[in-house]
C-alpha cells in the first residue's frame, strides 16, 4: 500500500520541519517528504490541503483496563479510541489485574494489541512484585518481553532501602523509571486538593506536600543511583519548580503533565462533580498556572492523557466513593492545541509535547517523520470545531468532565505503520 498525503502543512518538530509539502508512504515507512521518490506511484492519494500532517502521537499514560477490568474497557475499544484521536503509541501503567510484573502479562498485552491492530502499546512493568514495594520483579525479563520502562506507580515501597535497590537494579539494564510522586502517608484516604474548597466540602485532602515530599525523596535516590527517571502526572507548581532546579543542577530528569491539569482546578469539583475526581487531585489556580509555566519553559516536556475509562457505575456514588480518573484519549489533541491559543506554546512545540518529546523520554526513534522511519502519522484539521458528547466518544469510558466543551482541532486520518486505522467519517 502506497499512500501520498497531498498538500498538507507538515509539522515534524524533531526535524524542525514546518512547511507545506507532500508525504509519501510505502511499505509501512515514510518513503519521502516533498518530492516523491523516483518511480513512486501511490495506490491512494489523500488530499490533506486543509490539514496538518504530523507524527502520530505518543501518549505517556493511558490505562486500557485489560487484562482485568474488561467491564470498563478493552484493549480493542481503547486502541480504536486512540486511533480516532491520532494517537499511535500508548504507554500503559502496570496496574492491570494481574499486575504487569511478569513477561506473561506483557506478552498477553502485546498479543491482544496486535490482534486489534489499531495502535502500538508499550507497557511499563511493575518494578516490584504485585506493586507491593517489597520484592523486585524480574526486571531483565520484563525488558526482554518488551517493557519500555518500569514503575511502582503510586504504590509505596516498604522501605527506602527497597526503593534504592529497585532503582539500582533497573539502572543496571538501562531501563527508565516512571515515578508518580505521591507520598501515600500524606495522601491516605484523600480525594481532593487540601485547601479552602476541600475544607468547605468536608472532603479529605491530599496536601501539596504529598507530591513535593515524594519528589524530594525521589530526587535524592535518583541522584545516588544514577537511574534514568521520568516524573509522571505532576499536579503542583512547586513540584515543577523542584524539578526545574534539579535539571538546572544537572540531573537528567524529565516530566509530564496530564492535559486536564492544565485546565481544571479544585473549583471544578464544586457541587461534588465526580467526573473531576482524579488522583493526583485538581489543585489551585496557582498550580495550574505553574504547570503551564513549566510546560512553556520546557521543565515539563510532555502532555499525556492519563486516560482512565470507567463504567458508568464507577462514578455513580457520593464523591469520595467514586473511582478517580477521566476518559481522556480523545481530548488529548484539542486540549494540547488550546495551549497554543492560550499563548503557552507555539504550534510546533505543542505537537512536540505529544510526539517527539515523549519519544525522547522513552529513548525511541519514533515521534518523527524521518524518511525510512515507521509511518505512524496523524492528520488533523486545526480549524475544525466540534463538541465532545457521548455520541462522539469512541472510548468505552464516557467519564469526562469535558462533555459539552467546544473543542477545536479534529483528527481526520491516522496511519499506523502506513496503514489507515482511522478516517473521519464526514457529513
Amino acid at each position, binding site marked *: 500500500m502506497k499512500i501520498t498525503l497531498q498538500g498538507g502543512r507538515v509539522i515534524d518538530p524533531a526535524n524542525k520541519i514546518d512547511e507545506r509539502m507532500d508525504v509519501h508512504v510505502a511499505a509501512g515507512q515514510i518513503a519521502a517528504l516533498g518530492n516523491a521518490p523516483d518511480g513512486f506511484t501511490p495506490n491512494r492519494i489523500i488530499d490533506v490541503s486543509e490539514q496538518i500532517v504530523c507524527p502520530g502521537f505518543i501518549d505517556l499514560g493511558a490505562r486500557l483496563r485489560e487484562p482485568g477490568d474488561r467491564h470498563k474497557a478493552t484493549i480493542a475499544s481503547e486502541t480504536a479510541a486512540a486511533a480516532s484521536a491520532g494517537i499511535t503509541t500508548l504507554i500503559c501503567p502496570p496496574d492491570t489485574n494481574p499486575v504487569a510484573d511478569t513477561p506473561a502479562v506483557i506478552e498477553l498485552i502485546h498479543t491482544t494489541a496486535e490482534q486489534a491492530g489499531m495502535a502500538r502499546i508499550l507497557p511499563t512493568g511493575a518494578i516490584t512484585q504485585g506493586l507491593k514495594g517489597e520484592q523486585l520483579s524480574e526486571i531483565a525479563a520484563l525488558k526482554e518481553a518488551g517493557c519500555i520502562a518500569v514503575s511502582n506507580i503510586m504504590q509505596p515501597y516498604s522501605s527506602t532501602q527497597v526503593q534504592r535497590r529497585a532503582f539500582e537494579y533497573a539502572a543496571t539494564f538501562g531501563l527508565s523509571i516512571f515515578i508518580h510522586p505521591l507520598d501515600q502517608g500524606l495522601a491516605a484516604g484523600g480525594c481532593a486538593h487540601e*485547601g479552602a474548597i476541600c475544607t*468547605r466540602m*468536608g472532603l479529605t485532602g491530599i496536601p501539596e506536600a504529598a507530591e513535593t515530599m515524594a519528589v524530594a525523596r525521589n530526587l535524592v535516590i535518583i541522584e545516588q543511583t544514577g537511574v534514568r527517571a521520568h516524573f509522571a502526572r505532576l499536579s503542583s507548581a512547586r513540584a515543577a519548580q523542584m524539578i526545574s532546579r534539579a535539571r538546572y543542577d544537572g540531573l537528567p530528569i524529565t516530566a509530564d503533565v496530564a492535559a486536564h491539569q492544565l485546565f*481544571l482546578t479544585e473549583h471544578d469539583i464544586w*457541587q461534588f462533580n465526580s*467526573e473531576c475526581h482524579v488522583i493526583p487531585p485538581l489543585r489551585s489556580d496557582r498550580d495550574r498556572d505553574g504547570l503551564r509555566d513549566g510546560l512553556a519553559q520546557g521543565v515539563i516536556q510532555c502532555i499525556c492523557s492519563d486516560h482512565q475509562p470507567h463504567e458508568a*457505575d464507577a462514578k455513580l456514588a457520593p464523591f469520595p466513593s467514586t473511582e478517580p480518573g477521566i476518559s481522556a484519549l480523545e481530548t488529548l489533541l484539542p486540549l494540547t492545541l488550546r495551549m497554543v491559543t492560550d499563548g503557552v506554546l507555539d504550534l510546533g512545540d505543542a505537537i512536540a509535547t505529544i510526539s517527539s518529546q515523549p519519544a525522547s523520554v522513552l529513548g525511541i526513534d519514533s515521534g518523527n517523520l524521518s524518511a525510512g522511519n515507521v509511518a505512524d502519522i496523524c492528520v488533523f484539521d486545526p480549524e475544525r470545531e466540534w463538541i465532545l458528547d457521548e455520541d462522539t466518544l469512541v472510548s468505552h469510558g464516557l467519564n469526562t468532565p469535558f462533555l459539552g466543551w467546544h473543542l477545536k482541532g479534529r483528527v481526520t486520518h491516522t496511519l499506523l505503520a502506513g496503514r489507515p486505522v482511522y478516517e473521519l467519517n464526514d457529513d
Partner: protein
Amino acid sequence: MSTSQNPRQNQVDEQGALRHFLTIEGLKRELLLDILDTAESFAGVTAQTVKKVPLLRGKTIANLFFEVSTRTRTTFELAAKRLSADVLNINITSSSASKGESLLDTLRNLEAMYVDMFVVRHNDSGSAHFIAGHVAPHVSVINAGDGRHAHPTQAMLDMFTIRRHKPDFTALKVAIVGDIYHSRVARSQIHALNILGVPEIRVVAPRTLIPGGAENLGVHVCADLNECIEDVDVVITLRLQRERMQGAFLPSEHEYFHLYGLTEEKLECIKPDAIVMHPGPINRGVEMDSAVADGERSVILEQVTNGIAVRMAVMSMCMASRADGGGGGEG
C-alpha cells in the same frame, strides 16, 4: 471554563423556595430567617397536648440512616409524625449496604414505594447532593449529616436556640471550640452564623483539628481557649470522637480537657449572660465538665427540644414548594 453541573441538585427553586435542604452554604439570609420563623410557629405545637398538625398528611418520609444516630433520627421522626406524615425508618448499616447493594439501588427501591422525602445521613461528604441529583423530580432530600460536609438542620436548630436567647445576630461574638476538622456541624454553623450577620466568629482547637484554609470559611482561628472565648455571647463546643487519639490528632483526652475542656473557671472570661451549647452527645470530662453541662448557662437540652420544631419547619417548607402545594402547607 467550568464543568457541567446537575440542576436537580439545586436546593432552591426559581421562586426562591426550598426544594431540598442539603447545605446552609449559599442560602439567602431571608430564607434562613423564614426557617427560624416557621420553626417558631411550630414550637407552640410541640408544647401542646395534641401535638399534631395535618400539613404532611398522606406524605411518606423515609429516614435513611447509613450511620448510627439517636437524637437526630428521633427528632426527625417526631417532627415528621407531628406533621402527620407516614415515616419509614431505614437503618442501612444493618441491611442493604452489608449485602453490597449500591446507594443508588437502595434509593430506587424506596422510590418505588412512593416516598416523598428522604432524610439522609451518610458517612460520605456529598452524599446528600448525590441523592438529590438522582431522585425523581417530586422528591425532596434533607441532609441529616453527610461525612464532614454539612449538617444543616443541626445548624438551624442551633441558630434557633441562639436567637431565643440573643435576638440580634448582628451584635454577637460566637466561639466554636473543638474538632472543626472532622465536624460537619461546625461547617454548617459557620455558614449560618455568617449568613445571619454575626460579626465575629472565633474558633479554637489544636492545629491538627483545624482544617486547611479554615480562615476562608469566615472565622478567626485563635491561638488558645482564653483568646477564643473572652467576652463572647455564645460558646459552642463540638464533640470529640474517641478515635481521634488513634490518628495522631491528639495525645490524650486528658491533655485535651486540660487545654480546651470547659470548666466554670475557664468560663469566667465570657459575658455573664452568655450561653453554652453542644450538639451532643457530650463526653463529660472531655469537652466540658458536668458543672458546665448542667449549669445555668447550658442550653444543651433546649437544643434537643428545638430540633423538633426546626425539622418540622424544614420538612414542611420543602414539601410546600412542590407541585400542587405538597400536603397543603403554606410554608
